[in-house]
């Protein structure tokens, strides 16, 4: 109570002393006002840009984790990554369900074959069978139409989304929505068109893509045909006309081939549905290591691997992009910090300068206060508190000014801006700190005055 009273009095006295000369107090604190305003504005604009950069890098797939099946090997010969069929759609669901650090996960089924519309055909770089989560994973938007749904996936509906390149090649200005394209003689209804994405980091055209439910691709497209790229070449003619065999040394087939009618009548039972790989996103760049760990744990458990057995899958992240991302953010932060420090030091020197003038000017007042019973520490506290109050008021004005400035920038220049509570808290702390550091010397000088000399001072 007594302490609170005393603190209140000290602040009250300091405020009154400052208000005795409001113009000077304002000019003194201008350095801090401008410094803090600059810091806040820079922080907010910087955080906005940084978030925008982060978002665009994330759009390039920086958070994406690539989960691939492991390598099969036989007699010491490995067949490279992805050659086993150990990943299932249920693995994907388990990852979504049990890994808190994972945002989205999409099962992926790949194929490469011809797509036909009317009289035109094209072999897209990517034909992916997946779930709607793929669009979230890749940060991809649908430019026209609607994405396919989870129900389409469950039912194996013949719907698809086309990339811009495919639209250009197949439809030539025609509106593709609602039209049909054929993949391996399976007719898919075009439900939407993907937004433009351009080339990926390897220079491959990402818009040369067709997306469909993975069940449809798996069971209706790749399940019904082998892996020929050319639809016409694989049809009946090759099985009938052996002269079209390009490689005569080929091993004769040991079993009679099933005719198309037989295949349609008795579809091959699918033992279990494996998928080619899983794309997952970590919730944020920070969560990537946690996400990898959780995915590994979940998959090892699901695949019944003993502790000494190696993983039958691999999880890869985009390390290169992550490095670029974090170094960009770090550089931005450091740059802003340097600017902040310089402007606040300049402001602090201004405060110290004026406080020294003020101590000299108020020598008689200090003498008087000492004569009526102020101890050296009372004088010291009073002047430090004055400097701190000055800085805090300046800091508060600076926060308002800086925030207002960044909002203006957002309104008129449409720059991305992000309010940063951390920056505001830091500004308050730093301005109080500046007041204390730069107010100390003048206050110390004041407290060391001899009351007799001070009272006699003209």
């Amino acid at each position, binding site marked *: 109570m007594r302490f609170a009273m005393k603190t209140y009095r000290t602040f009250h006295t300091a405020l009154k002393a400052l208000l005795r000369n409001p113009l000077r107090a304002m000019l003194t604190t201008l350095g801090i006002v401008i410094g803090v305003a600059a810091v806040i504005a820079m922080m907010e604009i910087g955080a906005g840009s940084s978030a925008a950069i982060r978002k665009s890098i994330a759009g390039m797939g920086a958070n994406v984790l690539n989960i691939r099946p492991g390598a099969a090997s036989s007699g010491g010969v490995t067949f490279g990554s992805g050659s086993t069929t150990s990943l299932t759609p249920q693995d994907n669901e388990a990852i979504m369900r049990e890994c808190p650090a994972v945002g989205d996960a999409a099962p992926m089924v790949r194929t490469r074959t011809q797509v036909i519309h009317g009289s035109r055909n094209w072999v897209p770089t990517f034909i992916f069978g997946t779930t709607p989560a793929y669009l979230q994973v890749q940060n991809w938007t649908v430019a026209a139409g609607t994405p396919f749904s989870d129900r389409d996936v469950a039912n194996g509906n013949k719907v698809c989304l086309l990339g811009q390149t495919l639209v250009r090649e197949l439809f030539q200005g025609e509106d593709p929505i609602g039209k049909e394209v054929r993949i391996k003689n399976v007719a898919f209804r075009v439900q939407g068109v993907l937004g433009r994405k351009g080339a990926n980091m390897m220079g491959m055209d990402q818009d040369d893509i067709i997306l469909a439910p993975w069940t449809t691709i798996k069971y209706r497209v790749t399940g019904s045909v082998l892996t020929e790229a050319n639809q016409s070449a694989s049809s009946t003619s090759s099985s009938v006309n052996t002269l079209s065999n390009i490689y005569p040394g080929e091993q004769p087939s040991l079993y009679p081939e099933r005719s198309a009618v037989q295949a349609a009548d008795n579809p091959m039972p699918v033992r279990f549905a494996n998928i080619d790989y899983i794309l997952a996103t970590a919730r944020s760049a920070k969560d990537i290591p946690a996400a990898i760990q959780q995915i590994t744990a979940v998959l090892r458990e699901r695949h019944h691997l003993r502790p000494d057995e190696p993983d039958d899958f691999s999880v890869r992240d985009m390390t290169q992009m992550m490095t670029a991302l974090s170094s960009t953010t770090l550089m931005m932060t450091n740059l802003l910090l340097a600017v902040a420090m310089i402007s606040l030091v300049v402001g602090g020197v201004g405060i110290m300068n004026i406080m020294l003038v003020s101590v000299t000017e108020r020598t008689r007042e200090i003498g008087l206060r000492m004569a009526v019973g102020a101890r050296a520490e009372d004088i010291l506290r009073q002047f430090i508190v004055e400097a701190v109050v000055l800085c805090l008021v300046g800091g508060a004005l600076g926060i308002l000014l800086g925030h207002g400035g960044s909002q203006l920038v957002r309104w008129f220049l449409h720059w991305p801006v992000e309010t940063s509570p951390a920056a505001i808290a830091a500004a308050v702390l730093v301005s109080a700190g500046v007041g204390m550091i730069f107010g100390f010397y003048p206050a110390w000088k004041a407290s060391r005055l001899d009351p*007799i000399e001070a009272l006699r001072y003209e």
Partner: protein
Amino acid sequence: MQTIIELQDICKAYRMGDITVPVLKGVSLTIARGELVALMGTSGSGKSTLMNILGCLDRPDSGVYRLDGEEMSRLSADQRAMVRNRKLGFVFQSFNLLPRTSALDNVAMPLTYTAGHLSEREARQRAARMLERVGLGERMGHEPSRLSGGQQQRVAIARALINQPPLLLADEPTGNLDSQTSAEVLAMFQALNREEGITIIMVTHDPHVAGYAQRAIHIHDGQIVDRAPGRDGSADRGQAPCVSP
């Protein structure tokens, strides 16, 4: 009669470069509680130095100073600040009011340093009572620049009395005032002395001002003399007790 101030062989010298200038050369005096004393002397006689020592602003080089029976000469700076706040009131020649601060806040200022037990409201009430006592009840909100010299000095007196000290030290309190306001201020000192029993020591070089006091103490060349010294400076008091450092 109860003594409030007792000085024994107070010595004080100032150092100016290599030369040591003795200012007080063994001052001994006793002042009883409730006295109104004038401390007289020409400039350079050491009366200001003596006043500083009496006001606990300075410490003697040697000698004993008892205020209210307590030894003062060996207190630390912070302890002396406490004594100044509790037991002493100061009135200065140049008033020393805080500029651009209301009379009320000026009077309440000393409470900032000790009266932590008083609430803001109590402090202001007390300051207001003091101002009423010096006859400035209607001018509490005025800043010093809007008060006359006499009024300013009365604000200063109210400030000196706020902690109800037993001793009031006035350093040339009428030095900046005309004769009429001087008379008012001095009459106020007399009234305070008579009605409240406050001991008052006034430093002055003006015999007319000293006339208001019950007793005048003359100081000449750092020593107490019985009366105002003659032209020949015949103030021979024998061997000074101070040892030159």
